[in-house]
């Protein structure tokens, strides 16, 4: 059952990653990417890393990919230009791909032999009865790696503040809403009752 699930998830990850690259339409690309994320989360579940799987779905599928999709849908894409850029950047892309592939093969082979991963029994989930995924990860993050963890948080905060500063520009002609003012407004402030004499009219 586990083996079947593993091959199912793994083959869908690889296939959808390939489709993500080869899809003509960028929106389809993003959707294939989402399918790849989703099945990667399934693989995490299989090795017993349930917390990582949940995070993968919440953060990547639920937030990052939605923004991707958002941006790609709003873009007005010129396919001809896209294809011209493809030929121009092909050599650089090939070099990068080669380096990446070499790294994967070398380090993969190293860690495979050192961890004894060729052994089918070596991949196991967390021990039954021990602390759950979340507890184990939490204890580690908040004791041993507390400074690294906080540093990562600070970096993210700085990135967020930076993004806000970069996009926040003063624009003229903005009609901003002041909710407090709108809520405080009473009928008396805007209207008045008058009883004009016949033929006199009202002074505004």
């Amino acid at each position, binding site marked *: 059952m586990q083996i079947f699930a593993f091959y199912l998830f793994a083959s869908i990850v690889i296939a959808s990653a390939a489709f993500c690259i080869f899809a003509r339409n960028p929106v389809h690309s993003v959707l294939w990417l989402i399918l790849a994320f989703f099945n990667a989360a399934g693989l995490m579940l299989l090795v017993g890393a*349930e917390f990582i799987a949940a995070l993968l779905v919440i953060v990547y599928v639920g937030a990052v990919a939605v923004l991707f999709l958002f941006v790609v849908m709003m873009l007005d894409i010129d396919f001809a230009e896209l294809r011209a850029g493809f030929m121009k950047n092909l050599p650089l892309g090939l070099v990068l791909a080669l380096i990446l592939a070499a790294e994967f093969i070398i380090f993969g082979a190293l860690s495979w032999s050192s961890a004894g991963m060729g052994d089918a029994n070596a991949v196991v989930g967390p021990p039954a009865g021990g602390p759950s995924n979340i507890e184990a990860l939490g204890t580690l993050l908040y004791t041993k790696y507390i400074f690294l963890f906080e540093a990562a948080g600070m970096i993210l905060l700085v990135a967020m503040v930076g993004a806000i500063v970069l996009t926040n520009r003063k624009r003229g002609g903005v009609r901003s809403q002041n909710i407090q003012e709108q809520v405080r407004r009473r009928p008396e402030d805007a209207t008045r009752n008058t009883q004009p004499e016949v033929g006199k009219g009202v002074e505004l």
Partner: protein
Amino acid sequence: MTEYLQSTFLGPEIGWFVATLALILLIALPLMLAVAMIIYVDRKIIAAVALRRGPNVVGPFGLLQSFADGLKVFLQETIIPSSANKGLFLLAPIITFTVALLAWAVIPFSEEMVLANINIGLLYILAISSLGVYGVVISGWASNSKYPFFSAMRAAAQMISYEVSIGFILISVVLFAGTFNLNEIIKAQEGHVFGVINAYGLNPLLFPMAVMFLISSMAETARAPFDLTEAESELVAGYQTEYSSMSFALFWLGEYANILLMCALNVILFWGGWLPPIDWEPLYAVPGIIWLFLKMFVVFFIFGLAWATVPRYRYDQLMRLGWKVFLPISLFWVFLVSGYVMIDKFGWPL
């Protein structure tokens, strides 16, 4: 049931498979029935507020109205706009419907009646509910039409905004309960207030969170007064504009299944789930599932009343409420709650 099927001729593996399949159907089919009935209830509530009769023709008291509607859409022709992206156009309602059903896997109906009693139940629900936006966004884009596209934009922005504060609200409940498991969260509420009331919601520290969660869940399900995504005065029917027949019905079913799920979550997190409201022995004689349904119904009634009485928000007000009101308050409250929990567990630091 699982053990029984595993002990028969089916063997442990196939027996487990068959049992799980049966249990899934045991949740999904009554859920569909509940959705049909809750649509009827919704229409009756709104009718009562507007001094109308509501559905009263089909069946006794109009009880079969939803089934008649279902039969009607089932017999209609499925129309696919010629300029639509056909595959995605048909996929979108399926995604909405599937995602709406998926989350029910971890909902505990009583202490034993839960399909998947997993450690990360609440995270699972958070993950699944963040997927709900895809159905809307994909349908808006695939329809290749202006109003659905606007609606998809609004839906994506709205759901992401409110998910942030919902996350913080959930965290404060988790801090109190000390677990992500929904069943354990319910058990932790036993006699929580004064030792007699089984509800986190009446804890003074958590009461504001309960109110905010109720409002956020209305916004998350795009329910009135936050139904900007299908505001008929601006966007025709929003992302559903181009849909017809069963694909339209799937959106409809998924939407109400989501609303029921949010009612269940409100009840489980803040109002004691399947526990009776008061920690008093005779009340435990009533099965937990009945307490759960009663409480869910009360929450749904509030949803219905809100729809009937509150005017729709303006878009900038909706965003302001999410980002400038709920987010700061819930963030501060997480800080407050974690401080309280620390002191409660480990004493004053001085």
